[in-house]
Every structure is written in C-alpha cells, then in structure tokens.
C-alpha cells in the first residue's frame, strides 16, 4: 500500500468512513468454475435505479474505491450504464473483477474512456485444457486472454488473478510467464472459500501443504523467503489492541440483493440497502459494530498462538467455521507451512483428537496415544 493510500485509509478509519466497497452486481455467470462459492441463480437483483441510488448513498458516505464484481458483471445489460454513472456522475475510483470473455475491442475502449482504475481477470492456467476444465467453458481461456490483450492495448491496468487449487497447482509459473509476456500483473491466491450455503465440500480442491510450501518459498512470488517465512515477533500490548483486518472498519461488501456484509468473504448479514440507508447500516448495525469492536486480544485461541503477530487470519473464514473470534484453519495452515511451527489452533485440535481417541479406546500409555494421533 502506498504511503498516501495508507494515510487515507487511516483517516477513513478514524472518521468511520467506508473508503472501499465491493458490490456484486449479479451472481449470474457464464462460467461454472469448479471452486466457485456462489449460487448462480437470480433471486431478485437490484434494479438499475436501485444501484444508482446506492451509488448516490455511497458517494455521500465517502466511499472512494468501488469494486464491481460478480458473478459475471458483463451479463448485466445495464453494466455500462452503471459504470458510467459510478465514474462520471459520482467520481468513484472503479475496479472491475470479471472473467472478461464478453470484453471485445469496443468494450475495452469504452472501459478506457470511462477511466477504470484496473480490471482483474480470472486466469487459472496458461494451458487451455486446464483453464477450461476449471471454468467448464470450452474456449474460455482464449477469450479471456484476447480480452486481456484488448484491455492492455488500451493502456489499462490488467491483473490476472490466479486461484490455486489441485487442478492447476503446477501452472502458476506458466501464468506468471504469460502475464510477463503480455505486460500485465498477476496475483496468486491459494484460498478456497466455502459455498454460500455453508457447504465446505469445495475446500477439498485446496492445494496441500507440499504445494503451499513450494509457493511460499518461490522468491519470484514472496521476495525474501527467509523474511516471508520467519515467525513474527511476539505480540505486544499495542499489536494486541490492533484490528484483525479492514472488514467492517474501512471496507464492506454489498450483494446483488442489497445485503450488506463486512466483506465478500464474511457472510454476516448487517442490513439491506433496500430498506435502510447505506450509511445507517454502516454506522449503526449491531453486527457491524460487533465486528468493529473485536481486537486481536479478543480472539479465542489465537491470542496464545505463536503466529498472532503476523498471521493472515481471515475473520470471515473464521466466522464460516463458526466463530468470528476464533481461528481460521486455512490461515493456521499457511502460518504452519511458512514457519514449520503449528498454530495454537492446530495444537488444540490435536489435543482434542487425543481426548476423543482416549474415550473410545482407553490406551495403556499416554505416549502411545500421542504417537497414534501425531
């Protein structure tokens, strides 16, 4: 984060301004990615007028960075009307997230004319047989890459977003090389999000620890490996009083149906803009204020963890595991793979596992039990 952006975010935090908001314009999609957490039916999306009204309220509330995502945003016939309104009438800094398969040269030129800040495009592999097997749409890689080139040729900032999963775990160097060749940025994210209905089966697509270990030790991705994989300094009083993340503090998320959540990955309903003003939900929702009240020192299990000072713990994933103050197992695993030191949550689970076996099998020696459950 640049110094000025950091300064702006700190100011927004102090003034309780939601500086950055993501709106999913639709959950409908023209791809069927195997890891996607969304239900792609339309259950009553906000109308054009409702979205424009929301944008008015958000500009009034001080929102500056607006991410338009989905589903696939270009499936909305009013997409450019919404984008034009957001940019020219309300002055947002707009970022787009899309699979881009509906972006041709004409659309790319229009996006440029409207001054979009960046376009993030999902690219899972440099090989069509891998990418298309994830999106379940034949020819989708070619169409997405054509769009990347159209957008790039307009001088736009394009980011290839690569979600790492078992299907494409060997391909991230290929995606990175492709991005370099085209001259665009890349991101790599090994996080798989549970389905909206709570089904966690999709988590089985997550890469194992061996692949994570390899990723975390790739200098091209993490820079200084020793520094990246070092155990964080023990948390002091100041760091324990700090915020777990920006969700609900300077950022939030609005669904296509007007529901407001602290973050796209934090499905705690806090209100709906169809019957409340956006700013009232932001300032006065009990749920939003509960999220806002949590400091690192309030976390169960994590406060006693060796990684608390440097963990990427996602409160939304923790919430989806049943406790927004609890650990997020995916982040525990990342901390462990980085450092080789198990998290407090992992150790607690191990102890819990031992107790369960003890009840069932009554071992003769505690040492045998530890060996059996290690």
């Amino acid at each position, binding site marked *: 984060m640049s110094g000025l952006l950091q300064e702006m975010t700190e100011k927004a935090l102090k003034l309780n301004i939601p500086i950055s908001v993501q709106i999913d314009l639709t959950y409908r999609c023209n791809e069927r990615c195997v890891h996607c957490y969304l239900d792609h039916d339309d259950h009553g999306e906000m109308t054009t007028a409702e979205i424009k009204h929301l944008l008015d309220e958000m500009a009034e509330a001080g*929102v500056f960075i607006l991410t338009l995502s989905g589903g696939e945003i270009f499936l909305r016939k009013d997409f450019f009307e919404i984008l034009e309104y957001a940019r020219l*009438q309300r002055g947002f800094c707009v970022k787009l997230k899309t699979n881009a398969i509906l972006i041709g040269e004409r659309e790319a030129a229009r996006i440029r004319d409207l001054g979009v800040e960046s376009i993030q495009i999902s690219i899972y592999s440099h090989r069509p047989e891998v990418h298309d097997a994830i999106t379940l749409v034949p020819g989708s890689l070619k169409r997405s890459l054509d769009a990347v080139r159209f957008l790039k040729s307009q001088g736009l900032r394009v980011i290839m977003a690569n979600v790492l999963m078992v299907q494409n775990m060997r391909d991230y160097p290929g995606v990175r090389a492709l991005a370099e060749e085209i001259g665009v940025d890349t991101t790599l994210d090994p996080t798989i999000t549970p389905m909206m209905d709570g089904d966690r089966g999709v988590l089985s697509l997550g890469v194992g620890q061996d692949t994570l270990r390899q990723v975390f030790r790739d200098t091209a991705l993490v820079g200084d490996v020793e520094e990246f994989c070092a155990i964080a300094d023990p948390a002091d009083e100041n760091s324990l009083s700090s915020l777990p993340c920006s969700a609900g503090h300077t950022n939030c998320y609005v669904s296509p149906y007007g529901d407001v959540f602290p973050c796209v990955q934090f499905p705690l309903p806090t209100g709906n803009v169809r019957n409340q003003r956006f700013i009232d939900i932001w300032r006065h929702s009990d749920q939003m204020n509960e999220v806002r009240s949590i400091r690192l020192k309030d976390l169960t299990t994590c406060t006693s963890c060796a990684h608390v000072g440097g963990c990427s713990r996602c409160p939304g994933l923790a919430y989806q595991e049943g406790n927004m103050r609890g650990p997020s197992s995916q982040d525990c695993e990342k901390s462990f793979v980085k450092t080789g030191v198990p998290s407090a949550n992992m150790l607690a689970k191990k102890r819990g596992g031992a107790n369960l076996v003890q009840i069932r099998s009554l071992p003769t020696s505690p040492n045998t039990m530890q060996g059996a459950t290690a």
Partner: protein
Amino acid sequence: MSKLYVARNPRVAARGIGGEMMIMSGRDSTLFTLNKTATILWQAADGATPLDEIVQQRICPEFEVQPTEALRDAETLARELAGHGILQVSEEPIPTGNPASGEPQGEKR
C-alpha cells in the same frame, strides 16, 4: 492576454475525505491529495468558466490575495495539475459533460 479554461479530467477519480480532496489519476493510478487552493480550482474546473473568473470569485475572497498575483499562481498550479493528468487546460472552453467533482451531493432520501 488570452483566457485560460480548466476542466476536470474525466478519467480521474475524486473524493473529499475529512475536508481533504483525494484524487486518483486514471493515467497511472497515482494517488494525490490536493491542498486548499488546488481543491478550489478542482471544484470550479467546469471547462466553461475562465481561470481569471475562478480566481476572482473563488480564490481571492478565500485567501485575500491580489488578483494579478493569484492568477499567476493559479495558472502555474493548473498547468502542474494538468501535467499529472488531473486537469485539462486550454485557451478555448472545454466541453466535458461536467464529470463529478467528488464532493458530497447533499443528503438523499
């Protein structure tokens, strides 16, 4: 001396936060904060009002400066902001469609 016109660049994003104007350049995503004079200039830059009028009506009353000196400084500032892709500067009126200034629009509903 010919008139100078200034307009907000439609590819720029802007928002007033806690009394300070934040600007994100559409050209390279650089973030800027504007000082008080630059903010006044940004808000008044509709492409149709000549710079000398902006100076006379908006800047001089605010800072109690001589119009000639203020106009010279404003012209320098406008060209500097144009160099960053924040404003457009021309000796002719600039048709713009008047992109948003980033200021609050007043309470809704």
